[in-house]
Structure formats: structure tokens, C-alpha cells
């Protein structure tokens, strides 16, 4: 356990570095020593067995290398950890929080940053942060458009992709209006998770952006990058018209929505639906490897592009083991950990490091993995849409709940 005074010294040392400064090797060595013997509680969504297994492997690595005990606290929903952190600090707990490291994104990050509940800046002082080349890839410093300011460290990439049962449909709909027409012709063969469940909200945002651009032109994207304003009603008008028309043609007539991607996969696998989507470009590859999807499942990206973002880890302001948490975050960024997560066919995660950062052997293995059935060509994945400002997410979720969750239909 770290004594309070030593810890204070450490914090001053770390925060004293200006954001973006070169990592100080001595500082990091000292931090590594501080972290020895610490127990790090990493609160992260635990719904993916392959990801859970990967984090177990990470725990083994940091145990042998840095003598850190890493515990993955499996969350059903990240908001649990966020509200818990808010409650802890509200109750005056500023030192002995229940989490040391959090996997967060988007509105959760925006909320915690705004409430000043995150420790830091620390992320850019990690030796491995330089590897992500944040100057070349600005998305490594922006979480849904909100500057990360060194309060969180990237660890995986995500992109929305759609996939379909190629035994049942020949050509899937490649735009939202096409999806509506397709659903009319194929009743009960599509559904989406109920917002505010993460994946459901993602679908909502995808449909919103696509339809808003169609209706109001590409300059709408400027409005979406800024906080939500009085244009909300007008800009979302096409979205609600679309959903009102779509819902009767969904699985179960839109009277029940699933909760998660796993349920979408199960429905596709069992031929209840023939079209689904996930927020992981390699979902189909990994799900086929796990046996959760049939080998004939094919993935694609909407013509207008799909939402993409980077996932981050952050340290709560009341984390008792900040040094250990930083060492773990840095290890998650290492080529070794990134490679391992990417090459495992059951996980097939999208690395945050540029391809050149891996050595020749790793590159060959990654190339081979990219040819697995169900994987997408890089050109298709290049069609991305930026996440709107997090305040849009909250507003969209609230309006969806107001309109549809009462079961009025």
C-alpha cells in the first residue's frame, strides 16, 4: 500500500508535467516501483467471454512483470460504475473508491470529466502512448468529439458494421431508407436493442446522422459536432418518422426489443432475423469462431459510412491504486497486448496502434487473421462517420424513451 505522503509526491510529480510533454523515464520507473504489490480493480463491461479471457491474460502478465494484482470487475452496464463513482464522491469518499481503472466512452466520459471525477492528466505521460501516434490519428485524443486532455488512454477501436445471413438474403440494404423498404418486404427479420442500451443507442445515432445528412445536407455534421441546441427537434424529425414507419415491421412487431448484441446474434443464428449489427468491425469473425454465428454470415458497411470511435480507460479521482492503474493502462497499449487481442480469432479486436508498430512476424499473423471468413476489407472500414457530441446521445436516448418505452403502441 502506498502511503499518503509518498502518493501526494507522486501525484505532484505526474501532474506537474505539462500535457503532451515527453514521458519522463525516471518518473515512470518510480511509478512502476510504487505500483508493486498494488491491487487494481478494473471495472469494464464483462459481457464478452473472449474479452474477459483476454483481461485474465493481461492480469497474468502484469502480475509476473509488475507484481500487480489485476481484478476485472465485470459490469453488465458501464453506467453502474459511473453512478457508483458519483455516489461515492457525493458521500465524501475521495480516497478509497471502489474502482482504480474504468473502461468508459462518450457520454460517460463527458459526464465524469465535467464533474471533475477523473484523475489526471496522466495518459500522455505513458511511455506507450507515443506508439499510437496521436498527432497522425487525432481520434486518439477525442472521445465523441470531447478532448480527452490526457484523462483517458486509448485501448481499442470500434466501428459499427452490419451483417446478414447470406443464405437468406442476397443483397442487404446499404442505407437507412433502403433498410426501411427492406423491412417492409421482410417483416420481423430485423430488430435493434432498446436504447439507452449501448448498441441500441449506436443504431439510433447511425440512423439519425444518415437521415439528417440526406434531408439537410452534409453541413449538418457541423451542428452535430457541437453541443445539442434548439435545432434538435427539426434535425431529428426524419429519424422519428423513420422509426415510426420501421417499428411495426421489426421482430415481435416492435413490442419487445432485445438488450444486447449477443441477443441480436442469437436471433440471427436461429433464423429469427436475417440482418444484425455490432459495434466491432471483427464481430462476425469472432462470433463465427465462437460458434455464435453461422459461417455464411457476411458483414458490410453502410454506403454513407458508419459510426466509429476509440475506447478508452480512465482513472477515477478516488482510485486508491492510481500507480498500478497507470501501469496496467500502459501495458494495455503495448504492441504485445494489442497484438494478442487482435490475433485471437474469438476476440479479433481492432488495435489502436498503427500497423507498422508491430514486428514482421506479428504483421504476418495479423494479415492472415484479416483474411478470416466474415472479415471486412480495409477500404470498406475506411468509410467512417464521426460520433456526434455526447450531448446528442443523451438527448436522442431521452426522446426515444419518451416516445417508445411507454408501450403506447
Amino acid at each position, binding site marked *: 500500500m502506498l502511503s499518503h505522503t509518498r502518493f501526494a509526491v507522486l501525484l505532484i510529480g505526474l501532474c506537474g508535467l505539462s500535457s503532451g510533454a515527453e514521458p519522463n523515464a525516471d518518473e515512470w520507473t518510480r511509478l512502476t516501483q510504487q505500483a508493486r504489490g498494488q491491487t487494481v*480493480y478494473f*471495472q469494464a*463491461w*464483462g*459481457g*464478452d*467471454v473472449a474479452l*474477459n*479471457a483476454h483481461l*485474465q491474460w493481461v492480469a497474468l502478465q502484469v502480475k509476473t512483470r509488475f507484481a500487480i494484482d489485476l*481484478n476485472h*470487475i*465485470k*459490469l*453488465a*452496464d458501464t*453506467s*453502474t460504475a*459511473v*453512478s*457508483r463513482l*458519483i*455516489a*461515492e464522491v457525493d*458521500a*465524501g*469518499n475521495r480516497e*478509497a473508491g*471502489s474502482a482504480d481503472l474504468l473502461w468508459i466512452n462518450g457520454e460517460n466520459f463527458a*459526464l465524469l470529466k465535467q464533474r471533475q471525477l477523473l484523475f489526471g492528466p496522466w495518459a500522455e505521460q505513458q511511455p506507450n502512448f507515443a506508439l499510437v501516434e496521436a498527432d497522425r490519428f487525432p481520434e486518439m485524443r477525442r472521445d465523441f468529439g470531447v478532448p480527452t486532455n490526457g484523462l483517458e488512454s486509448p485501448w481499442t477501436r470500434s466501428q459499427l458494421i452490419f451483417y446478414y445471413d447470406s443464405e437468406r438474403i442476397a443483397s442487404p440494404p446499404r442505407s437507412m431508407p433502403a433498410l426501411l423498404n427492406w423491412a417492409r418486404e421482410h*417483416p*420481423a427479420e430485423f430488430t435493434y436493442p*432498446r436504447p439507452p442500451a449501448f448498441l441500441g443507442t449506436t443504431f439510433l445515432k447511425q440512423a439519425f446522422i444518415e437521415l439528417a445528412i440526406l434531408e439537410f445536407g452534409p453541413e449538418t455534421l457541423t451542428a452535430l459536432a457541437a453541443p445539442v441546441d434548439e435545432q434538435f427537434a427539426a434535425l431529428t424529425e426524419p429519424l422519428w418518422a423513420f422509426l415510426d414507419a420501421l417499428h411495426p415491421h421489426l421482430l*415481435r*412487431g416492435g*413490442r*419487445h*426489443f432485445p*438488450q*444486447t448484441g*449477443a*441477443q441480436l*446474434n*442469437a*436471433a440471427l*443464428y*436461429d*433464423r*429469427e432475423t436475417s440482418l444484425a449489427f455490432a459495434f466491432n468491425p471483427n464481430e462476425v469473425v469472432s462470433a463465427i469462431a*465462437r*460458434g*455464435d454465428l453461422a459461417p455464411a454470415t457476411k458483414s458490410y458497411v453502410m454506403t454513407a459510412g458508419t459510426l466509429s470511435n476509440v475506447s478508452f480507460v480512465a482513472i477515477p479521482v478516488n482510485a486508491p491504486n492510481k500507480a498500478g492503474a497507470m501501469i496496467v493502462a500502459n501495458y494495455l497499449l503495448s504492441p504485445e497486448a494489442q497484438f494478442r487481442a487482435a490475433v485471437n480469432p474469438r476476440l479479433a479486436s481492432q488495435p489502436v496502434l498503427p500497423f507498422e508498430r508491430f514486428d514482421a512476424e506479428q504483421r504476418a499473423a495479423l494479415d492472415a487473421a484479416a483474411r478470416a471468413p466474415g472479415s471486412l476489407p480495409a477500404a470498406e472500414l475506411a468509410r467512417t462517420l464521426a460520433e456526434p457530441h455526447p450531448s446528442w446521445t443523451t438527448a436522442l436516448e431521452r426522446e426515444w*424513451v*419518451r*416516445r*417508445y*418505452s*411507454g*408501450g*403506447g403502441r
Partner: protein
Amino acid sequence: MIPRLARALSFRNLSLRDLLLLALTAPLLAGSVLAFLPALSAESSRQVFSDLLDAPGIVSSALLSLSAALATAAASLSIVLLFLAATQGNRVGRVVAKLTAPILAVPHAAAALGLALLLAPSGFLSRGIALIAGWDTPPDYLFVNHPNGAALILGLIVKEAPFLLLVCLAALPNLDAPRRVALARSLGYAPAKAWLLTVTPALYRQIRLPLFAVLVFASSTVDVALVLGPSLPPTLSVRILDWFTAPTLGARELAAAAAMLQLAVSLISLAIWIGVETLARTLYLYAIRRGAPQRIHHSHYTNLTLNGLGRMLLPTALLVTGGGLLGLGVASIAGDWRYPLVLPADWTAGHWIAAQQNLFVPARNALTIALGAVVAGMVITLLLLESQNRQKRHDGRLIWLLYLPLLIPQVVFLSGMVFMAEWLGLSPSVFLVACGHLLFVLPYLYLTLSGAYANLDPRWEALAATLGASRSRRFWRVRLPLLSVPLITAAMLGLVISLSLYLPTQLLGAGRVPTLTTEAIALVSAGSRGAVGTWALLQTALPTLCFMLALLAPNLFWKRRKGMTRGIQ
């Protein structure tokens, strides 16, 4: 030490026992009040409540919780009474009762998952029909998660009916049912009707409290509602949890206001039930005053119907749960099992191998918490019972406080307890969770043991006293050994309850104290069918083991004293 403490409690100061009860109840009451606080202390509580009433579908949510409670309690009670009336302790009845015990050990969530696996459009039943009807895609029907809550109620009945049956079986020996029935039959009533008319009134009085617990539980369950309940809108309890864990501004206040509504809904369900009791009493009196039916022919058909329903319904409920578990078992080792395959095309041990790497900590936590809560609960229960025993009084003015955790919905007071623990600086730990479990285990320990304690023939201790045994010697050497069988049964029941608790573990442990139950529920929405099946069975395994031990323990324990295994009264 226990007798000495007990003596101190009972002799010198009568109110010490009451103080103990109050101390046990304090966290609960404080938790309830604290849970309401965010709504009451908000800048404008009126605004919070009007926001709650404006929440889409809130009335449907509340009505759903209310109807689920009433329907579950009414159906479970009817099923159990009909079964008892139709079998009256015959061979079939005894066999079914034996099968009921292990079903009781199946956690609610696992039973619900099994039921969903049977009845969903891509479930077992549908696959069976597909085989005959030649379907190649599942039909699009909504039963599981239907807004009318039918699947939710069914999922509750298959668990609550076995619970009520065991409660009834425990109460029946004191009611002299055969002689009551014999008397009624001599007046011309058919057997089943005779049982219903003469035994039910006496039995009902004894099972009222457990029945109330069923009402409250059904009105506020979270785990069953998550699996089988509707989503547009969900039950009130699920919405409270959603709001409680939502990080958005104002959600906590809404959760607090909804918790008050939940308490009101549970209390209203009790009030309606008590109203129906009055009505039922009148009907009973009317039926009895009318006397035995004169037309034997008519009565014959009534009797056949009663017998048929009685023999069919409860075994069906057990079969559904058993079949669900079997389905989960198949799912856990299924490789390719695409619709419309009735059985998997190939098999795999992958899910079990993956689970086994994650098993140790959740299993250790679950056992530590359960053992801690049961041992502490046992000590407290014995203290309370022994002090009552020595005072020769069984009224215990405040003993009802012990039952509060069964009568106040968990989702109401737990959020307040989390806040209180936070405020006291108690960080989430196995210890804190075990303390929370203690509150839920205690009422069952007390319920199970108080009857046996009171019924133990006082002459045994009197005899020991004449042989010069001291109070404490009599307690340790006579009373406890004579009560060993009920003690073991109670302990096992306590373990089963603790092992299945979800909400207290999740909330008090802040997710940092994973148990088999929390791991299983975390996978419910996110995991694949195979992972869900594996963890649901793992979650079921420990409590089932406890139940088996409870059944076997008396024989192992008293291997050389056969008389003890029958339980001396």
C-alpha cells in the same frame, strides 16, 4: 457463552432482546428512509414526483408489478392447495414432495432462464413443433417478455408454488388433517372437497406470512423480471434499478420516488390480498353452511376435476423447471444448435472450460458469504429463541421486525443501505455483503427453527435438570443435539437463500464481490446461449448440493443413533 449471553438478555433486562431486534432492523429501516431521501430532499420534491408520473408507461409498470404479485400468489396457493387436497399424503404426494425440495434450491434466475429456453420462439417447444410441422424459421410470437407479464408470472409460479408446498408440508403435521377429512367425509363430502373445506382454513392461518412474502417478492423481483418480464415498459423494480444506476442528472431522485411507489405497490398488493381473504372467508362459510351436496352425481364430477387439476398442476410446474434446467444443460454443451435442430448437431466442452478459469473467486466468495451469514444468523436465532424459551413466553412483541426484509421490497431499501455504507466509510467487501445477506437469511432461520424449538418436549430438559445439569449444560448437551436435524435443515435453507441472492450482492458489493449468482446474471443479457447455460447451472449447483446435504445429513450425522434421524418432538 451463548447461554450466558442469552441469560443476560432475558433475565436482567427484558428489552435487551428487543434491542437486538431493533439493531438488526435498524439498517433496513434506515436504508428505506435513505432510499427515499433523494426524492424528499430534492429542491422540489413535487417536481420529482410529477417527473415520475410523467415517465412513459409508469402506470403500466406499477400495474404490472401489482398484477404479477396477485396473480403469482393466487395461482401458487391454488396449485398447492389443490395438490394437497388431491393427494392427501398418499404415495404420489410423498414422491412429488420429495422432488420439490431440490427444485426449491434452483435460483430464481436460473429457473427463469430455463423457462425462456423452453418457451421462446426459438426454444425447445418450438423446435419440437418445427420437427412435426416442418418449419425452418421460428414463428414470430411474443410470450416471453410479453407486456401482459404472463411469462413473468409463470416464471414466478414455478418457483413460488414449490416454496409454498414445503411451507404447507411443514405446517400440516400439527393440523391432524386425516381426522378432519374423515369427519367431513362422514358428512358426505368427497375426499378432495373435504380436505379443502376442513384443512385449508387451519392451514391458511399458518402459511399467511410466507404468502405475504411471496406477494412482496413477486411485486418487486428484479432478476426474474429481467429475463421474462416485458421491456416496454419493464416492471417498476427494473425501472428503479435502471434509474438508480443511470449516471444522468435527476435519475437518482427519480429512483427514490419510484422506490416509494414500489413500497406503495407492494403494500397495496397486501391490502388487496387481505380484502380478498375476507371475501374468501364469506364464501367458505357459505359453502360450509350449504352442507354436503345432495346430488352425488354432480359432486362426483367436481371431485374428478379437483383431483385432476390437483395432480396435474404442481407436477407440471416442477417439470417445467426441471425441463428448463435440462435445456440449460444441453445449451451448455451444444456446438452447432441452429434452429430448427431439436438437439445440437455437435457438442463441445468449450463453455465449461472457459467457465472453469473464472470459477474460483466467485465460488469462494459465494461460500464465504453464505457460511458467514448463516453462522451469524444461527447464533442470533438461537439467542432469540433461547431467551424466549427461558422466559416461557413466545409472544415476542418485536419479533415481527425480523420478518421486515421479507415484507419490504429489496429494491427499496438496498439503495439506501448502499448510501449508508458509503457514508459510514464501509467499503464494499465480502464482509459487508455477508452482513446484508444476514438480514435475508435470518427470517428464514427463525421461521424454520421457532416451531421446532417450541415443540421440543420440555420434559427432556426437566429430566436433565433433575440429574443436576446446569442451564448451559442442558442447552449444549440436551437441547442442541435433540434439535440437530431442524438445525441442519435451517442452516442449509439459509445457505440456499444466501447463495441465490442477487440484488444485495450486486449493490452492497459494488460489483467488486463477484459470486456465482452475479456472474451468471451479468452474462444473462450479454452472453451466448452456451455461456448462459453453463453459468446458470453453476449457479444452481451449490444450492442444490446444500439441499442434498440437508437431506442426507441426519443419516450421516446420527449413523449410530437411528432414533435421532426421525427427529424427536
